[in-house]
Every structure is written in C-alpha cells, then in structure tokens.
C-alpha cells in the first residue's frame, strides 16, 4: 500500500514539476545564509505573508534551484511601484496514514489568500483577503476571510509598533501549524482549525544582535464566540555569529475556559550555508476554569526539531523529530514523530514537501507507531 502511495506521490511530484506549482511563508532556515531577522524578506516583523523586494530577490537567487531573471516578480510579471508590496499564497496537502484503526488518504485545502502591503512614509498598511472552506457555511460571506490586516508605524529602522490582526510573536515562525509545538499547544493555529490570528498591539525592536517583540493580545473581539487567548507574549532573541539565532518565548493567555503560561527556548542554527537545525521546546502550565474552587493545573510540553541539509540549491533533505506530552500526569497525552523527506523550492513561487513519518499518538489510542506520509505544495505569487 505504501508503495502505491509513493508511486502516486511520485506522479504528483512530476505533475508539480510539469505544471509549475508551489511555495511561500517564512523560512527560518534562511538563517544559515545570514538572514537572522524575518524582516529581511517579509513585511511582518514576525515573518510570513507579504515579501519585501529583497525577499523576492532571495527567492530567486538563494532559495530556488532554478530561476530566470525577473521570475521573482509578483505573479511573475507584475512591476509593482516601490510603495506597494504584493503577495499571496495557495497551499494544499495530501496525506496518507495507516494507523492501527484505519488506513486513509486525504486531500486538504489549506490556504488561498491575496495580500498587499502599502508603505506611506513611516507607515505600512497590510491586509489579506482570501477564500476559506468552512465546515458549515451559512452565507457566502463565510467563505471569505481576512487572516491578517494591520497598520505598522516604523519609529526607526529598529523600532516598530503594529496594531491589527496577526499571530502574536512566539517561537519560530512557521506555516506548519501541524507541528506538535503548534498543534498541541494551540499556538498559531489558523482558522478554521484553531481560532486564527488575534487582534494585537505589538512593539518590536529588530536590532543587529538582539530582537525583542512584546505583544498585547486582545483575542477576537470581532467574534466573541471564539475562545481566543487574551494576554501577552514576549520574545527575546539573540543572533549568534552571522548565521544562527537563539531565543526565548513567553506567552500568557486566558479565556472563559482556561488560562495558561507557556515558555520555551528555540534555536535556528546554521552550521554551514547548507546544514542547519531548527529546534523549539515549550513548556505549558494550563489552568482549567472548570468550576469555582476547582482549578486543576496541567503541566505539559512539546518539542520539535528539524535537521536539514541542502543537497543542491533549493533541494533540502530533512530529518524531523517531535515529542509532546501535554499533561505530564497523563501518559495518554504522549505523541511522538520521527520522519525524513525532502523539502524543495524548484523555482521562485513554488515549494513542495514530501515526508515519511513514523508517528505515535496515545491520545488517539495509537500506542504503536504507524505510517504517515504527506505531500504539501505551495504557490506564493
């Protein structure tokens, strides 16, 4: 069965090449080339979303296997004025799993957004608009979503203040919300899986060596039914040499159901221009507001590490390892993953990942490891 799916994935990969699909978001592994700050390539201080002109140049010259001059332009051909940065993402995945209880393969639509950032003097106005696939739509409006929209004031080259809807700063910025450090701790979980981006006020200092991001989190006042964290986060990071960075993140959040403190270190280490390690470990103290006078605290943690080696420019061999136990007192909250695969940026605008994993998920009743394969493709315009 696995062989059948591997052949299918091979065909998908071939189709991907022939029809030129693919990538975008924040790629923290770029730290190995000396880009220790997200704002090298992205408008957002926390990375992801609209690319800067410099980020587009890098996508052609450093990130991708092949490219022709000008291929990095928005949608391949748009010459946007200096004050306007354009972007957009389409992401989908196909996964196959063979658990002790079921064997299935499934296509997953993930994201289809357009985004633009307009710069006027010291201000940046950024907004996205896209399509989502709600489980139970009531009106046509339910298909539309603006995941991010914010205004940012650049007091200096290093200091900025941002208000609007976006993910609060925490840990390594990655679009892979399925990682255990994101999924099990419900951090940076997009709609409709999680509660999506919240409304925040963020102050950021992006220096040569140190970065400090402080975020006031105001939840989702636009949708009070969403139990989104209200609280604050702080991220302090330090560049180590020219191609590595370590940081410490803290998040406090509360809603009607719970309050929590999450803290953890992370590292983005570029050993060479081709060999890198991304790693993050977070500890959570979750207090449930179950009933007056009864507020049990659940201690837990999650960890994710990726060791990558760029075989040829744009083509990475990756080894992943993940561990989570969201309640130390409950052994059935244990999850583990070990995987290996490829992560490829064949041309500007295109990204694909194919990975085989062995997974264990006691919460789902899977004490034994089982097969899991995913193929993800991403087009960033």
């Amino acid at each position, binding site marked *: 069965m696995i062989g059948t799916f591997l052949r299918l994935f091979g065909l998908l990969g071939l189709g991907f090449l022939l029809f030129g699909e693919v990538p975008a978001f924040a790629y923290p592994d770029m730290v190995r080339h*000396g880009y220790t*700050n997200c*704002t*090298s390539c992205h408008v957002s201080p926390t990375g992801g979303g609209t690319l*800067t*002109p*410099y980020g587009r140049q890098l996508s052609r010259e450093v990130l991708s296997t092949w490219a022709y001059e000008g291929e990095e332009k928005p949608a391949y051909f748009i010459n946007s004025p200096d004050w306007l940065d354009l972007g957009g993402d389409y992401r989908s995945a196909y996964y196959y799993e063979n658990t002790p209880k079921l064997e299935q393969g499934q296509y997953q639509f993930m994201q289809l957004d357009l985004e633009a950032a307009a710069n006027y003097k010291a201000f940046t106005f950024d907004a996205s608009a896209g399509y989502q696939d709600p489980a139970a739509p009531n009106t046509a409006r339910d298909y539309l979503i603006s995941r991010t929209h914010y205004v940012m004031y650049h007091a200096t080259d290093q200091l900025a203040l941002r208000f609007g809807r976006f993910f609060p700063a925490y840990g390594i910025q990655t679009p892979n919300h399925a990682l255990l450090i994101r999924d099990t701790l419900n951090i940076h979980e997009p709609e409709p899986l999680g509660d999506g981006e919240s409304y925040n006020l963020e102050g950021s200092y*992006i220096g040569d060596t140190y970065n400090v991001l402080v975020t006031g989190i105001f939840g989702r006042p636009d949708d009070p039914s969403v139990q989104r964290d209200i609280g604050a986060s702080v991220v302090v990071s330090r560049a180590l040499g*020219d191609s590595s960075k370590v940081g410490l993140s803290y998040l406090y959040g509360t809603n009607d159901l719970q309050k929590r403190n999450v803290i953890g270190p992370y590292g983005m280490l570029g050993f060479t221009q081709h060999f890198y390690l991304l790693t993050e470990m977070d500890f959570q103290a979750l207090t449930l507001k179950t009933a007056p006078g009864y507020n049990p605290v659940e201690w837990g943690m999650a960890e994710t590490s990726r060791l990558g080696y760029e075989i040829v420019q744009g083509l990475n061999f990756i080894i992943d390892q993940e561990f989570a136990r969201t309640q130390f007192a409950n052994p059935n909250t244990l999850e583990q993953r070990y995987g290996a695969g490829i992560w490829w940026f064949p041309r500007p605008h295109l990204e694909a990942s194919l990975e085989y994993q062995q997974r264990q998920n006691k919460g789902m009743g899977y004490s034994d490891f089982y097969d899991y394969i995913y193929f993800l493709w991403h087009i960033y315009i």
Partner: protein
Amino acid sequence: MKLQKGLFSATLAFLIAAPFAAHASQEKIDFDRATGSSAFHAVGRPSAIKINGTGASPKGVLTWGDDGRVGGSVTLDLSSLDTGISMRTNHMKEKYLEAGKFPQAKLAITELGIPATNVSKEFTQENASFKGNLTLHGVTKPVSGTLRIEHHAKNAVVHAEFTVKISDYSIAIPVFAGITVADEVNIAVDANAPVSLVAASK
C-alpha cells in the same frame, strides 16, 4: 710613515666595511605570489541584514626593514568581489564602486606596529596596528587597522582588518531592493605570502 700607514689601514677598513654598514636588513612580503582572499562585511537596514562578501587575494609587494621603514602597496581587483547575490553584486560593482572606471582598490602601507628588530625573524604577533592610504573610487584617504601575523622563515600568514566609511570615497550609500547599506564597511584580508630578505640603502 706610521701616520700614512694608519690612514691607509683606516681607509681600507672603511671601504671594506662601508657597503655593509650602509645597508639595513629589509624584507619583502610578496603578495603577488600569495594565496589568500579578501572579505568584507556590511550591514543593511532595516532588518540588520548581514552582507558578507568575498574577493580575490590582494596583489603587490610590501617591504619593511630593521630601520623601521615601511613601503609598498597591495591592490585588490574589484571585479573579483561577490556578495552572494548576483544582482546585488552587479549593483555594487557597477552602480556604486564603478569598477569599470576604477577597477582596483589600492592600499599603501605607511606605518607598521611590529618591532623593526623582528625583520627576518620567526615570530607571531596579535593585534599589531598598521596605517596606510586607501585609494578607492578615485579617492585616497588614510586608514588604520589591525593585523595578526605569523612570520616564518620563508612565508608570512597575515590576517588584516580595517574599516572604511564608503561616503569618504564619494560612493553613494548603496540601496538595493529596499535595503540600505550602512556607511561603515569592515574589510578583512587573509594571505599566506612568501617573504625574502633584500638589501636596501639607507
């Protein structure tokens, strides 16, 4: 007769000794036959982008003698510079350094903070100072820096560092894809160069 003999002996002794006494030991460090590289480091803002560029080994000859005198110069072929991003490299060389019009940077050394008594000896010295005049983009300005030298019998391993302000050299502050390069650029040179003793007149 005795006086004449004495004068003759003294004159003879002077004539024999004079050529040696009038020459100091002088050493040549031959960068033309060196292996090495040059590098530069700049910061781009916003985002604190670290721009690490590379270049060829500098060429030329430096001399220094036990009389304390220092001379010679080294040049760097600007066409060899590479920032790792081809469009950025082309912008740097064509638009800012104007390498077609000013193809070389030249550093003439004027002072060397190494004891003159070390000429021709084997030694290692950290953080030795040097001063010189750098000609870049058609403009000559004094520069100073530090170097580390491992001096062996037949070669010297040198690592030198200095900082330049690009605005001092009538070079516009480079801007590329929204990134502005900071005015100060750090330059480092590594070379393993043959050394040889030469005679020099005082």
